[in-house]
């Protein structure tokens, strides 16, 4: 099993190595931009997985914390004149607070009702962003609505290389953080809540508190991705709050393997680069995402990582009864029933 972990680690290291080397091959700036956006979307998909995969709270409004952070960055820098680092920190905190609020509202709900509530909240925010305009003081012209709000960046024309590497570093750090969280004691409890809320509660787990925690942590990472995205594109728009974005994150997680964090990251990056790189029109992309999701749900319900894991267990002749890693004592029990 340790060799399996090393094998997985080896693949990940090789993937990151290739991504580090990619800009050195003098690619088209368009592809660098596609990858940069892909890294941020992948982090966003992983943040959905913290809520929808690890914790089992299917959210269809995950674009809300992403977009809230994007808008906060734009408003705080452009209208309030805040320094960028402070605005980003405030945006991430706002996203976490939004997540805590959604978690509190959805705590008494289960299953499809959580999905419906989050869908409704996301759509309310999206419609508000589309319909609302902000007036700049000195200029007197309107921002917001369909055109969105620009971010006041302290740099002009950032190099695509620096954006690429900054986004890649963010993805690696955010994924590491989310992976650590999902494997922590709190993550274990969240997986228990996802598997059987009633047994978890009968084991002393305060369900509502842990649901809030899942939404708060997932939304904080979504907000960080949203802030990164708005710094990259330079403008917060209503698309950052759209249902399509939430649906994309859920699709990436389902296809990658819910609750695995790494699966959604890899699938988000691959599908985004593939579909954007082919310059497919948005309608074709939505169709392909939906098709990928349907095929996965029908034939590979565990997603890419789940299916690969099952395959590895089957090929290795193991039924899961062996230890992933032995720690502490290895004494015999009283016998198996």
């Amino acid at each position, binding site marked *: 099993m340790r060799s399996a972990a090393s094998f997985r680690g080896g693949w990940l290291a090789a993937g990151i190595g290739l991504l580090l080397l990619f800009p050195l091959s003098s690619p088209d700036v368009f592809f660098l931009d596609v990858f940069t956006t892909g890294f941020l979307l992948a982090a966003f998909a992983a943040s959905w997985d913290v809520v929808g995969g690890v914790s089992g709270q299917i959210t269809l409004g995950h674009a809300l914390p992403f977009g809230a952070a994007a808008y906060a960055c734009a408003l705080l820098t452009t209208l309030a004149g805040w320094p960028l680092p402070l605005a980003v920190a405030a945006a991430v905190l706002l996203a976490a607070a939004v997540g805590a609020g959604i978690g509190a509202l959805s705590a008494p709900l289960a299953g499809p009702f959580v999905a419906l509530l989050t869908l409704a909240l996301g759509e309310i925010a999206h419609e508000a962003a589309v319909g609302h305009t902000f007036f700049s003081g000195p200029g007197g012209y309107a921002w917001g609505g369909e055109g969105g709000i620009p971010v006041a960046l302290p740099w002009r024309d950032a190099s695509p290389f620096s954006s690429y590497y900054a986004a890649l570093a963010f993805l690696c750090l955010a994924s590491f953080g989310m992976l650590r969280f999902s494997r922590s004691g709190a993550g274990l409890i969240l997986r*228990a809540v996802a598997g*059987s809320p009633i*047994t978890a509660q*009968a*084991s002393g787990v305060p369900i509502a508190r842990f649901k809030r925690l899942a939404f708060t942590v997932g939304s904080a990472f979504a907000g960080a991705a949203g802030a990164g995205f708005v710094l990259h594109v330079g403008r917060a728009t209503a698309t950052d709050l759209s249902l399509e974005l939430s649906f994309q994150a859920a699709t990436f997680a389902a296809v990658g393997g819910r609750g695995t964090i790494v699966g959604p990251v890899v699938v988000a990056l691959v599908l985004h680069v593939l579909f954007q790189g082919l310059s497919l029109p948005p309608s074709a992309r939505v169709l392909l995402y939906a098709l990928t999701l349907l095929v996965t749900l029908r034939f590979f319900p565990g997603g890419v990582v789940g299916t690969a894991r099952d395959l590895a267990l089957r090929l290795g002749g193991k039924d899961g009864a062996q230890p992933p890693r032995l720690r502490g*004592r290895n004494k015999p*029990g*009283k016998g*198996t029933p």
Partner: protein
Amino acid sequence: MNTLLTADGITKSFGATQVLSGITLSVAPGEPVGLFGPNGSGKTTLVNILSGLLLPDAGTVRFDGKEITRLPLDARYRLGIARTFQIPHPYPALSVREAVRVALDAGKRKEGSATREDEEGPTEDLLARTGLFNQRFVPCAKLSQGCLRRLEFARTLACRPKLLILDEVFSALSAADEGDLMALLRAVNRDEGTAFLLVSHNPPLLKSLCRRILVLEEGRIVRERIV
């Protein structure tokens, strides 16, 4: 008599159907009590109210001198009331060891901090005690009925309960599993002074394990028998 759990005047209706009518009962510390009754007599509803899964329409529940009528299931677990379910609901994606660790972790939270290493010993001791040590890495979804019952026991014992509420925990078990779990229950009662309220359809089993048996019929306790 010193009492651990007291239920007073518990009444519960679902729509027009009255399921429990003014149930009053008590359990002393360390006392093994049985609850017997035909299907539909209200046993599971009573267990759900005592464990915090349901709120009564009227009546109060007290535990260790505190009123806990409105306290939810998880808070009662942390106080020392642990229950099993008639049909176990395992965590499909968790291994047996992880499932036990969830209960241990939730129990430890009330006492303060506990590191992962602190929990290795208690987890493995519980697994050995319930005969699940060799199954510790098996996903809960792949367990047999007997192992699921053993896991229910491990989960309830994780909080070092003062009172166990066991709902048909011996049903659909092999003779070997039943014997092992009965021995475990006796040991927990004798060695740790844990009281239990055992719900069962099986009078000989109740007689062999309990000192007092309450008979529930149509939502009322109609008889009490000292064994």
